C-alpha cells in the first residue's frame, strides 16, 4: 500500500496517493502497463460530500482527454467528470451500483470508477499533474476554501 501524502487543513485531513497522476479537477489515474484506473481524489470527494449516485460511461466507450466519462451526484453538488486520459473504457467498477459510498470511504482504492485501455499515454501524461504537484494545488485550494468560510 502506498504511503499517502497527507495534509491537515482546518479540521480536515486530505490524502494524495503518490502513485497517481491527476487532472486539474481532481480525477486521478493510476497506470499499470497499457491500462489505467480512474477515480476521484480524496479532496474532491470530501469537498463534494456524501455520494448518492454515480454513472460511468459503459464499457467499450472510446474517450479522448477532456471527454465527460462520469457523472456523480452528491448531497451537495452534481459533478460531470472529464477523462484525464484517452482510450477505451474496459471495465466499470461493479460495486458502485449498490454502494456508491465506497468512493467516500476509499477514494484511491475500492472506490475506483473505471478501468481504461490507454491509447495515447505518452502524450496524455505530460499534461497531467504528478502527485506532488497535485498535492500542492490541492493544499492551496483547501486553504482558500477554509478562508472563504
Amino acid at each position, binding site marked *: 500500500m502506498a504511503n499517502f501524502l497527507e495534509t491537515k487543513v482546518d479540521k480536515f485531513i486530505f490524502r494524495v496517493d503518490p502513485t497517481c497522476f491527476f487532472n486539474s479537477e481532481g480525477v486521478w489515474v493510476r497506470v499499470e502497463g497499457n491500462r489505467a484506473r480512474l477515480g476521484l481524489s480524496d479532496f474532491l470527494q470530501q469537498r463534494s460530500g*456524501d455520494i*448518492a*449516485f454515480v454513472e460511468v460511461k459503459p464499457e467499450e466507450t472510446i474517450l479522448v482527454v477532456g471527454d465527460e466519462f462520469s457523472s456523480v451526484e452528491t*448531497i451537495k453538488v452534481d459533478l460531470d467528470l472529464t477523462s484525464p486520459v484517452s482510450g477505451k473504457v474496459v471495465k466499470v467498477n461493479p460495486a458502485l451500483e449498490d454502494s456508491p*459510498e465506497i468512493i*467516500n470511504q476509499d477514494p484511491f482504492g475500492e472506490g475506483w470508477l473505471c478501468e481504461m485501455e490507454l491509447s495515447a499515454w505518452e502524450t496524455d501524461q505530460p499534461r497531467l499533474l504528478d502527485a506532488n504537484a497535485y498535492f500542492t494545488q490541492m493544499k492551496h485550494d483547501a486553504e482558500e476554501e477554509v478562508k472563504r468560510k
Partner: protein
Amino acid sequence: MSDPVKKVVIVPCSGIGKSFGTVSRVAAYQVTETDRPDQTQLIPLALLVMGDEESRKLLAESQAITVDGCKLACATKMVQQSGGQVARDYAVLDVYRRYRDFKPQGIAELNEEGEKLAAALAKEIDAVVDELSAHKEGGSHA
C-alpha cells in the same frame, strides 16, 4: 395524558443548514404530529446532547427510531450513548437513493421534491412505528 412508556421515540438529525437534515426533521414532525401522534414522541437531539434527564428516562423506557441527515449519524450515536435502544436507524441519503426523483433542496424550507422525500420517509417510519406498537401490544398480553 398517554403513558410515555408506550410511545416510540423519534430522534431526527439536528443539523441546521443542510437539506438532508431538514428532510429528517420534516419527516419526524409528520410522524409525531400528524401521522402517529398517539404512538410516538419526538425528542430533539439537543436535549440528549445536554443530558436532559426527562429525555433520557423516556429513551430508557422506549424504543427509538433515529433519522440521520449525514454519515456522521449523530442521532443514532447520541441515542446509543444515552442508553437508548435503536429499533431502526434511517439515513436520509439511503432513503433518497430509493426515491431519486425527489432531490431535496432548500434549508429553512424544502423544495417540492424535498417535501415529497420527507413524506416518503415519514411513511416508512409510520410502518415501523406500527410494527413496534403491535409488538408491544402483543408483548403486553403474553
